């Protein structure tokens, strides 16, 4: 048997082995994290972001997988997203949001974050998503001003 074939077979065998271990992990069970209370979500924020104090403006998602709040001094937006049996946390300053959209009860945040580019929060009530979208506009980075070269190009077009 040539070396390439050996490597390909080893690769297939390894991928199969990984699949079996993951299936075993699923079969044995694990506990999915749910954010049942605001206090629980805030504990993740305190754990991950030193000095973060959540203010009164906060919301848990209907599926208990997400949490959003404004910091007490309104300087940052706190986000907690349940991921598997743990949570991923972000504290966003002004300019760290690319866009905010409200559609029905769903609030969609687009972030300048390579590993967490989009956060979708189902807040349960229509008005709540729009109200958050309005509040978060101050955290959206203002569109870049066109450069002189771009202005010149547009004028000459």
């Amino acid at each position, binding site marked *: 048997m040539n070396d390439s074939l050996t490597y390909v077979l080893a690769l297939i065998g390894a991928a199969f082995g990984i699949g079996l271990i993951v299936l075993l992990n699923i079969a044995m069970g694990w506990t999915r994290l749910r954010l049942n209370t605001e206090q629980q979500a805030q504990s993740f924020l305190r754990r*991950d972001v*030193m000095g973060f104090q959540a203010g009164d403006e906060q919301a848990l998602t209907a599926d208990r997988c997400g949490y959003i709040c404004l910091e007490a001094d309104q300087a940052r937006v706190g986000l907690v997203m349940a991921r598997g*049996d743990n949570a991923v946390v972000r504290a966003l300053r002004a300019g760290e949001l690319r866009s905010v959209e409200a559609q029905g009860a769903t609030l969609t945040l687009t972030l300048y974050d390579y590993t967490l580019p989009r956060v979708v929060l189902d807040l349960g009530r229509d008005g709540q998503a729009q109200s958050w979208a309005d509040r978060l506009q101050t955290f959206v980075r203002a569109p870049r001003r066109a450069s002189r070269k771009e202005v010149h190009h547009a004028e000459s077009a």
Partner: protein
Amino acid sequence: MPNLPDPILWAIPGFILLVIAEMIYGRLTGKTRFEPRDTAASLVMGLGNTVSGLVLGGIVVACFVFVEQFALLDIGWAWYWFVIAFVLDDFVYYWSHRWAHTVRWWWADHVVHHSSQHYNLSTALRQPWLNPLTLKFIFLGSWLVLIGFPPAMIAFVAAFNLIYQFWIHTEAIKRLPAPIEWLMNTPSHHRVHHATNPRYLDRNYAGVFIIWDRLFGTFEPETDAEEIRYGIVRNLGTHNPLTICLHEWWGIIKDVRSARSLRDALGYWLGPPGWSPDGSRDTSATLKARWMEEQGLTPPRKPDAQPPVAAE
């Protein structure tokens, strides 16, 4: 030259059996945690590391063969040279690992290993794919070849170093007898290394012998008073292996492109992770200093601060 086997290939079945055993033990006792997507990501990163080793490993071999021409000594294959090589390799590993945490270019590679929010045996296998491209081996690995240790001997002992480090990635073992905890890297010491609690940041870089950390002032014992938070300061929002592999490289590219001067570009590339020209981001040092301030402790003295000199 003896025909040395690859110890890692022989160890792989043992790795798999131990991961399964720890998973079952964790389920029965609740002492360790596994999550399927995290486990999958770790194992895929491990497999990718093996494949990339085959593809890119030639760069390292070519470098070592080149450096070997200038070797200062002709070290043979007596057994005691293997022992000496093992200890020296571990010493080089300590510094290599320390710089992998303090130079962003090398952190971009090593962050992969720290990117899991879990700490179990599968985390040990979560390894980067682009390691040879960091060229770290030129600055660090080449020293032993230059002294005169045969590259095959170094590869052999380095493999045992990595095998040793596998079993310490567990929460199932609390503490070992005191003499072992004093001399060797253990699960307790390495949990500290994987923690992002400010008190633990950038501590316990050892591979096999924890004495290097004790000698060079980077040792921190584990305390039962504080629950460990695993992962990285800003945890990843994905289990996608490609994103895990590339995220910090991408961050460096974006930052260097936005740099306003050569100094800033070099800082983003070779400065500590979290460095920024205006200090608006957090490095391990700033996080630790802020934490110490919050705790009412004195922050560590800056390296450039000189002790007061007595008047003559």
